[in-house]
């Protein structure tokens, strides 16, 4: 029987970081064109489409509108929108659909013109810029003036209190990611920075400095997933989905059950168990770096280090180029690109690494890569483990 094991066979990035001539829908389309060309599949073979629904910033880039625009008459559609980690959830859903035979080939796309359209206001300009009454659970927070950065600062402060984590340790994450950004000609910021640079950058919301925060850019990305069988005839070597799991512990930050433990502690072990591997087996990690604290909570939750030991772990240099767990090798959201929902770039970079196509940032002999996305306010977390070799 032909293998229906799900694989990622095509990847595409649209242009970034500053792209004033493209709108969100055009970012979707450019990334899709490049992903289709990357694997060489006939566009007509695509019978599944997945994108975020209603969460995109431009009118008309919800999943059904985009399926029409891209010309995908799908047998399987998913518009899961859980924020930045949506695409890790998408891979989980598409893998199940492919395995089950609901469809054979899925296109996943993302595009955002956030920087060009809104400027750099998301983190500190408020998600609500007028005085309209606030509905839903956000009315318990937004009227007090809670910026996006402030929500993550609450978690960082508690981590410092419980475990003695320092601003220097959080800064080390930003410094390591910037080092990788220096190897990526397209990254938003490429000049090396030091821990002192992070600490002397403007305090936005204690204890998070400006350089603890991700950049804001334009951009887009696309993935093509199919069966192992179909992938045999395509241009690129298949990258196997070995494990994929997601969870949601809360949505609004004020409902986070424990501010020092994120859902990675639930979906990480689940994904590792599916893949039959352990954190020590992973060659490179792509971790959603909306803020430095996001990475630290993820490292602990996924089990790369013990809970509360994230500070010491990053200080030892594991995340750096040449370290034991090179992390965010494209320059991450902290330095390269973050158009609003970054999850798809984690997957694209993981695939590049496993193909051996990561250029100067290539992790030697990378065979297993992990992508972990965080959506909302450390809320909806999903982990995907990818491998270059056929699972036994």
């Amino acid at each position, binding site marked *: 029987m032909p293998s229906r094991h799900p694989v990622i066979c095509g990847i595409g990035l649209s242009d970034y970081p500053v792209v004033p001539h493209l709108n969100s829908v055009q970012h979707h389309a450019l990334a899709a064109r490049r992903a289709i060309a990357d694997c060489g599949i006939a566009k007509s073979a695509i019978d599944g489409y997945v994108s975020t629904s209603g969460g995109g910033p431009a009118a008309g880039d919800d999943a059904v509108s985009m399926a029409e625009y891209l010309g995908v008459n799908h047998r399987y559609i998913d518009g899961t929108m859980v924020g930045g980690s949506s695409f890790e959830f998408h891979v989980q859903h598409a893998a199940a659909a492919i395995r089950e035979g609901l469809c054979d080939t899925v296109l996943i796309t993302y595009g955002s013109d956030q920087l060009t359209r809104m400027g750099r206001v998301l983190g500190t300009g408020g998600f609500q810029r007028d005085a309209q009454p606030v509905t839903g659970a956000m009315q318990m927070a937004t009227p007090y003036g*809670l910026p996006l950065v402030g929500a993550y600062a609450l978690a960082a*402060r508690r981590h410092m209190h419980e475990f003695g984590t320092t601003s220097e340790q959080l800064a080390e994450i930003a410094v390591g990611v910037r080092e990788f950004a220096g190897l990526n000609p397209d990254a938003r910021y490429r000049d090396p920075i030091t821990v002192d640079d992070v600490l002397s950058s403007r305090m936005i919301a204690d204890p998070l400095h400006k350089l603890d925060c991700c950049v804001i850019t334009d951009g887009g990305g696309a993935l093509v997933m199919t069966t192992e069988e179909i992938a045999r005839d395509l241009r690129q070597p298949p990258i196997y989905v070995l494990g994929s799991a997601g969870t949601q512990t809360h949505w609004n930050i004020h409902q986070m059950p424990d501010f020092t433990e994120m859902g990675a502690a639930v979906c990480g072990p689940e994904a590792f168990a599916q893949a039959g591997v352990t954190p020590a087996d992973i060659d490179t990690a792509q971790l959603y770096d909306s803020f430095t604290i996001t990475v630290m909570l993820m490292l602990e939750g996924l089990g790369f280090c013990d809970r509360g030991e994230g500070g010491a772990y990053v200080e030892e240099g594991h995340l750096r180029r040449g370290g034991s767990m090179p992390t965010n090798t494209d320059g991450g959201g902290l330095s390269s690109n973050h158009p609003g929902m970054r999850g798809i770039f984690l997957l694209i970079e993981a695939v590049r690494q496993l193909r051996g196509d990561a250029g100067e940032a290539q992790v030697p002999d990378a065979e297993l890569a992990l992508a972990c996305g965080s959506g909302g306010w450390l809320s909806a977390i999903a982990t995907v483990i990818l491998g270059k070799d056929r699972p036994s």
Partner: protein
Amino acid sequence: MRVVSDLEWQGPVPAGEGEYGEFFAAAAEGRLLIQQCPECGHRQHYPRAICTACGAEPEWMEAAGTGTVYTYTVVRQYGVPAFAELPYVLAMIDLPEGVRMFGGLTGIDPETVEIGMPVTAYARTYDDTHAMIFWEPA
């Protein structure tokens, strides 16, 4: 619970739809409400039409209006005009009744806030019949 009037407030306000309305109305009368489930005893905040633990219909209960700081941040940059007076402190407060609540922490030098410090709730009205909960050092 002390109630102060701030009818000049120009910032965003709660819409107060559904169960939220009762919470903000009670605050204007000096009562801090949380919910307790008559079936399983679970307590929760924010107010909802279902017990998140067992699925029954929760009831209101009045909290003492005391708590301790679980975590906090000092906001130093925010581009929303209503919050132009920087810096200010936002905190998660642990209530002795067993729920955690987000709010503004006022009446304190931001540099001296500490996790674990005891605080007291007060209400600040934003229209004639509704108020938001704030906190100040006990």
